[in-house]
């Protein structure tokens, strides 16, 4: 890349790094792994920078790379996720922090594809079509995955989920 491209990449990186990290965190539930995934997505973008020039296309490209990596990783045996009935106890924290923790913990128990749909729709604010494009599936699949994901969250969080939905 020439200097102008490096400069443009640096600006894009500055603008988008935290957003990508946050999405990665809700997708995988761990800040260290989220940083790994986010950094890798930016590295991949840097390597393909000349081919992807339009900012919206860059967002979509990074999002797709990130989601695919996290979902794929969840299938690999050395990182395969296991659901557990036990939620780690959080002692001495206020209600807001407890709510945040509960949501993140609950998301980790939702199957990876459903979790990705929920994160893209509720954190990134994508509509059904945008989510379908990011995940490479149909709108119908996104709708059913959303429904199943929310049902899974409700099964874990109980009435707290309804409180969140009303608040949101």
């Amino acid at each position, binding site marked *: 890349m020439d200097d102008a491209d*490096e400069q443009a*990449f*640096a600006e894009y*990186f*500055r603008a988008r*790094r*935290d957003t990508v*990290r*946050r999405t990665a*965190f*809700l997708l995988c539930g761990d*800040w*260290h792994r989220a*940083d*790994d*995934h*986010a*950094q*890798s*997505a*930016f*590295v*991949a973008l*840097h*390597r*393909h920078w000349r081919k992807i020039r339009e900012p919206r296309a860059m967002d979509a*490209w990074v999002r*797709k*790379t*990130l989601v*695919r*990596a996290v979902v794929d*990783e969840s*299938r*690999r*045996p*050395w990182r*395969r996720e296991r659901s557990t009935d036990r939620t780690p106890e959080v002692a001495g924290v206020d209600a*807001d922090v407890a*709510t*945040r923790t509960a*949501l*993140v913990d609950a998301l980790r128990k939702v199957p990876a594809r459903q979790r990705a749909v*929920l*994160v893209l729709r*509720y*954190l990134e*604010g994508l509509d059904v079509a945008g989510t379908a494009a990011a995940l*490479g*599936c*149909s709108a*119908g*699949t996104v709708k059913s995955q959303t429904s199943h994901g929310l049902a899974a969250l409700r099964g874990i969080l109980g009435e707290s989920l309804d409180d*969140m*939905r009303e*608040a*949101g």
Partner: protein
Amino acid sequence: MAAAFRDAVSEAPDAGFSADDVRRESHRIGRRNRMLVTGGVAAAAIVLAGGVTTGVVLARDGQTTTSAAAPAAPAQDSGSGARELGAPAPDLAREAVPSAPTPVGAPLGPAVGQDCVNPQDPQLRALVDAALPALATAQEAPTTMICRQGGGREVHLQVVDGQLTGLFSVVYTAPGEEPSQTAGAVGWVVEERPTASGGLVTVTSRPESDSGGVPFAAQIPDLATTLATHL
């Protein structure tokens, strides 16, 4: 709901990487791939040369093996009917040479001297392109470099097969290493084969959308078998 999701990530720790880190890693991968591509081209040349120059014919009774030079000129219509051993070599060779190149020499085997498995291994890519030339023009698919230790090799391609598009992955797992989990994914075509080096090769094709079929689904079993002899 959206507010709850935003709130859940409102207190992020400091980022563990900077733009300089990204740039450095990108350049490191670029340098490594440029070095590896030399080996990849050499491997492909050997494989292709083997496919062109050597045909191995197994006798129908399994008792005799005949080696012959493959025809350099375009083949003529050979007609029908069984041939005896010792018949003109070009015809025998044309029948015996498989659609994919014949393996020559030792299998490629595990990658060495790498800190993490390369998700776009140039040497494996050369083998894949030689075995299924329709993939030669496929672009590398977006992947991330989650560090998986070991001697594995991977290639992930964004493929187009007529109206079908999708992600095409070839993953070689070195002997003694845990294979990737790919079975059971709905809508994917997955073929696994034990390889000549004692590892495992897994070929996976998954459609980009739910509406179409799976790209190159029909070719995957033969591709997996061919790659297994090279790896």
